[in-house]
């Protein structure tokens, strides 16, 4: 069931230690207690990892759209660990700098440079929340294109209602123009926004593989094309 990730292996080893400890103190007759680990002997972090990965907390063996299993949706990478701050807020400056540096290294650009795609397709991608959901209803990527869910957090064109978790992007291209610098900035923000805002809430749509290069180009067109309703 487990893939041999360092995190999973570490937790498994940890559980074995606890298990052995539990057996040592238990009466021989009380076998029902022997398979119970002592939650109170763990730190909150250790217990959370244990509950997620070892105590049947989640369905971890379902296949996911990007290949592999749901297990990897719970295993934290370096950014996840750095940006998970109890109580909210940001980690210290050194951690933020490290996140920013790693983000810069993660960004790749399309051959031939950053292009604007089809704003009409971009409009639908920006609106759609479809994609990568798993569990009781699993998104079938062969049936529909993956969306970017931009409207969840951003207002774009005013013909549809967007959220305000992120800033409004209404009139984006109209107010900022289409210089190489602003195109690169917008591309980077979609690809890996941690390069400018370390530990931001926004997903790394390019670095994570959530969106394709073509989808990113279409979203950029929606933001920058003078014909796009974003720039009305």
């Amino acid at each position: 069931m487990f893939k041999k990730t360092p995190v999973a292996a570490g937790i498994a080893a940890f559980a074995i230690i606890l298990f052995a400890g539990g057996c040592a103190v238990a009466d021989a007759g009380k076998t029902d207690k022997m398979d119970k680990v002592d939650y109170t002997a763990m730190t909150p972090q250790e217990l959370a990892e244990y509950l997620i990965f070892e105590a049947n907390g989640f369905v971890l063996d379902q296949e996911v759209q990007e290949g592999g299993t749901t297990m990897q949706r719970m295993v934290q990478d370096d950014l996840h660990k750095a940006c998970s701050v109890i109580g909210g807020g940001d980690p210290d400056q050194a951690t933020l700098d490290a996140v920013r540096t790693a983000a810069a290294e993660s960004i790749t650009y399309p051959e031939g440079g950053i292009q604007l795609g089809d704003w009409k397709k971009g409009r639908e991608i920006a609106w759609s929340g479809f994609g990568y959901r798993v569990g009781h209803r699993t998104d079938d990527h062969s049936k529909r294109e993956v969306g970017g869910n931009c409207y969840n957090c951003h207002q774009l064109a005013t013909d549809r209602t967007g959220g305000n978790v992120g800033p409004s992007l209404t009139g984006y291209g109209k107010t900022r123009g289409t210089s190489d610098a602003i195109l690169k900035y917008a591309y980077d923000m979609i690809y890996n926004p941690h390069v400018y805002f370390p530990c931001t809430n926004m997903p790394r749509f390019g670095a994570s593989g959530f969106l394709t290069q073509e989808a990113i180009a279409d979203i950029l067109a929606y933001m920058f094309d003078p014909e796009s309703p974003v720039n009305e």
Partner: protein
Amino acid sequence: MFKKALLALPVALAVGVSANADSWQAPEDVLQGLIDSVDSNYLTQSEQNLIMMPDNPALWTAMDGEELFKTPRGPNNVSLEACDFGKGPGVLEGAYVEMPRYFEDADRVMDLENRLVHCMVTLQGFSPDDPEVKARHGSNSDHMKLQTYIAMQSSGMAWNPPLEHPLEKALRDAGEVMFYRRSGIADFNCNTCHGEQGKRIRASVLPSKDAPEEWTKAISWPAFRVGHDNVRSSQHRIRGCYWQMRMPRINPNGDASIALMSYWTDAARGQPAILPDMKR
């Protein structure tokens, strides 16, 4: 007439109704009290729901639940009146706002749903695979009927989940870690949506975990979800959140879900529960 019949349900508890957070109060009055006390776009976002609350369809679900609760059922042909929800067998008043809690007979911290499973299996003799135990969702499920009835007996009372037992504290603290734990293809955690006041996902105003008057409504389940046309539970809300976060399906019987619920209930401590609530 409709309203009158429904109000008869908690009438025994409603004696001496006041704004005091340890006595029963109608859910619409609890919500109005919160709205009057703070400025919150989350609490006021659906005028229609506020108007509808006295006729909340979840009140019917609760009435069905009362019947189920008091009827001898299962292979052992006993009612749930012998089930201890933390305040003694059959005592429901104020029981739900003090859950999750540690139960010695199960040697485990349990939320309402898991406690119901425990009693249906150990007391009534149902098998865990019987539909009565297994079906958790939808207004017509036994679970939603029973949970809504039981929870309703705590309306207006302050959330006060016990943390005296070491396991209660351990799970609450692990739940806090889970709340802030980012992972997955979209890098989300619970705090992405519930860490700031006045934020919206599209048109929906989100409740903030750090605004207790909002958070009590956020965790006041069971609630009739208008968009789903069904009464929904805490476990259903958690399942939906992990689905939106692109994370795996959470196991409603697992301690991970109970840890998260222990944390979120603690975050609403002292605020009056709205039971049953109505949500978008």
